[in-house]
């Protein structure tokens, strides 16, 4: 562990600009960007307080920044439990509390050929990296996105049908038929890659790590875990690594969420 540097995050109370359904389980939450919200890097997240009219206890919920313009911060959220459901109920004009941007982002690698592999809601930071973030790379950045079926390819509101983007569905209902890691292998077969990025289900990222091992190239993966503070303080969100320095554990919130995937103990990762 290097010296600890506190996050440059702040607590904000921001207005909901809109909250629209993208598909059966996905919705897009747009928040007014607070004036002093610093430019986030792709892979960073915000820690959002769940609004609760009835005093239920909620820890905050972490969500990747899917897009950040001058005026808005966008989150793409999948409904999985009570927290995301309560956020689904937020309406235009409501105020949400959050702090951020938090965590370590994907590295900015201008000279490299990057293949980014996203599954499900994991597309968010990879989209941000490729299309909007300060580190946006254009040519050298290929984005592969997979889902079970066409329906789950939720991002119909953004133009994914452009150069550098390839889609895969398990059932072949759209794009490549097969899983997105198979697609990646095929794509790299045609044109080599220097680095892999991944964000998605743990099993998918684990397969990406196998691919990276085979190709002997670096792999940066964005992990998830349950969080308390999201500031590196409570040690709730740790994952096991091959590193040492007093403890093999590193925090997803502060040491991650993006890790050099070769240091992770893939077999012991939580599968959230």
């Amino acid at each position, binding site marked *: 562990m290097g*010296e*600890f540097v*506190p*996050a*440059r*995050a*702040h*607590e904000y109370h921001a207005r909901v600009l809109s909250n629209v359904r993208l598909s059966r389980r996905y919705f897009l939450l747009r928040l007014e960007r607070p004036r002093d919200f610093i430019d986030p890097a792709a892979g960073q997240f915000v820690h959002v*307080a769940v609004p609760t009219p009835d*005093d*239920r*206890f*909620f*820890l*905050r919920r972490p969500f990747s920044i899917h897009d950040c313009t001058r005026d808005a911060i966008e989150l793409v959220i999948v409904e999985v439990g*009570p927290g995301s459901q309560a956020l689904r109920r937020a309406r235009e004009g409501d105020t949400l*509390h959050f*702090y951020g941007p938090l965590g370590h982002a994907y590295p900015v690698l201008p000279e490299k050929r990057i293949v980014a592999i996203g599954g499900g809601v994991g597309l968010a930071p990879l989209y941000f990296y490729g299309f909007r973030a300060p580190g946006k790379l254009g040519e050298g950045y290929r984005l592969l996105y997979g889902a079970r079926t066409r329906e789950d390819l939720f991002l119909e509101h953004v133009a994914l049908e452009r150069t550098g983007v390839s889609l895969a569905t398990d059932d072949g209902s759209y794009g490549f038929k097969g899983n997105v890691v198979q697609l990646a292998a095929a794509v790299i077969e045609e044109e080599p890659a220097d680095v892999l990025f991944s964000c998605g289900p743990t099993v998918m990222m684990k397969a990406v790590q196998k691919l990276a091992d085979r190709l002997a190239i670096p792999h940066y993966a964005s992990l998830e*875990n*349950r*969080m*308390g*503070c999201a*500031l*590196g*303080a*409570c*040690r*709730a*969100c*740790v*994952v*096991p690594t091959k590193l040492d320095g*007093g*403890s*093999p*554990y590193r925090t997803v919130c*502060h040491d991650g969420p993006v890790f050099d995937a070769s240091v992770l103990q893939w077999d012991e990762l*939580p599968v959230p």
Partner: protein
Amino acid sequence: MGDISIQIGPVRFKNPVFIASGICGYAEEYSPLVNLSRLGGVVTKTITMLPRAGNLPPRIHEMPHGMLNSIGLENVGLDRYVNEKLPQLNQRPDVGVMVSVAAETEDEFIKLAERFAPMDGYAGLELNLSCPNVKGEALDQGRNPQLVEKISRIVKERIPKKSLWIKVTPNITDVGTVARAAEQGGADAIAAVNTLVGIDFDLETGKPVFARGSAGYSGPAILPIALQKVWECAKAVSIPIVGIGGIATIDDARKFFLAGATAIQVGTSLYNDPGLPERIVDALAENPEWMRARARASASPAA
């Protein structure tokens, strides 16, 4: 804004609002969100002689009315705390620091106390005799009045000019007896309470959600139980009591003063609402009379 400073043993704190141990790590982490110097102080994560890696993840589990944690006292150990964490925190002038420590033996407590005795940059020690998330030792100490008295004494003797708080467990038949033992041993305050032992199960696996099975339950759900323990301590001792457990609103904090506390610590709710401790300070300072009228004589608040 009136004076709401309080005296606990030999130390004066600028107000009675603290962040509980384990919640904000070594405190520096929360500096982007909390103006630490506006608080009475922070209680840093419990440290032990040697670093500890803590328990296998998962480590936290949300329930509708609180949370379970099984962090397992992951900490950087005494050396790095003293050489790195505390000096870092001390760069911010004016932050009150209570150092939380745990140890397995009396000998270790002596060593810890002797290390801190000549030091500056902290207000006192809070002895965690009540962590349910490590094997045996801490919780068993906290259930044994003789041991509590002895540990209090050997530590207090070595830090006479600092404030010594004994953090007690609610998982006990009679918290009053333990509090009295701490008082007898020379403690300056009772910090009540640590988490309640609880467990939850994963219906899919049929197993406990945590590798260690049981964990520590905290948050709004435990408020009336924590108030009860403070109330029992208040009847048992005349030293100040620092109330902890389930505080999620200003009114919750006020209730601890009604139960007999002299100060309070915000725990789990900091995760949801990092502005809470400062708002409690503001609310109390708006009407210092309210607090003063309720302060137990032992705590000698500003006259």
